[in-house]
């Protein structure tokens, strides 16, 4: 699965995007965040406030309880500050 990161989530993790093969027990957006947090210090730092970060599956906002299985692209980013 292609995963993209933006703003300070991207900076803390250290890459803008990557391809990750997910284990079977990763079903929801929240599962993905928990899985990524265990990948290293940068991930743990970026995702420390895990309830706070936002997730989009195939470029649509999803809440953490929503399944991301089958999405071709998932993005993780801070609350938005445009406008």
């Amino acid at each position, binding site marked *: 699965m292609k995963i993209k990161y*933006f703003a300070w989530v991207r900076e803390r993790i250290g890459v803008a995007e990557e391809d990750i093969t997910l284990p079977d027990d990763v079903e929801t957006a929240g599962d993905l965040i928990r899985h990524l947090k265990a990948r290293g210090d940068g991930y743990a730092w970026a995702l420390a406030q895990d309830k706070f970060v936002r997730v989009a599956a195939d*470029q649509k906002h999803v809440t953490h309880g929503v399944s991301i299985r089958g999405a071709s692209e998932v993005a993780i980013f801070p609350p*938005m*500050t445009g*406008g």
Partner: protein
Amino acid sequence: MPSPSALAKLRIAVLPERLDANDWLATMETDPDTGAVASFLGICRADGGTLQALELEHYPGMAEAEMSRIAEEARRRWPITSILAVHRTGMVNVGEPIVLVAATSSHRAAAFDAVRFVMDFLKTDAPFWKREHLANGTVGEWVEANTKDDAARDRWTADGG
């Protein structure tokens, strides 16, 4: 006369360079029943002289899709005849525009409401992020999301829009 493509009723753009509000507003569709053009222009402010510029990052593809979705929703809610949303990315210096939203309608209320609605949702739902560049030449912090923005958005659902 504007070209036919400039007469599209819903236009969205993400611009990596200068946003000229007058140029964009000049392309707004009007017809004999148009009685109102309302617009909002958001500008990078100096924040008491501490800020030199804002650097805007966006999620290409999703930013445009969310702006379209929000503008479509405005078009569904109010009898507007056209709507425009334009947002900058990259470096925006103090005094330069960041975002322009405009709508046309027969009467002013629909155009005013549609513009405000699009701005309120754009703030919280369109994937853009601002980072500060300070007047002292250093790179500042990422701007934190403001709970007032969530409240402004939620007002549209809490009172039934």
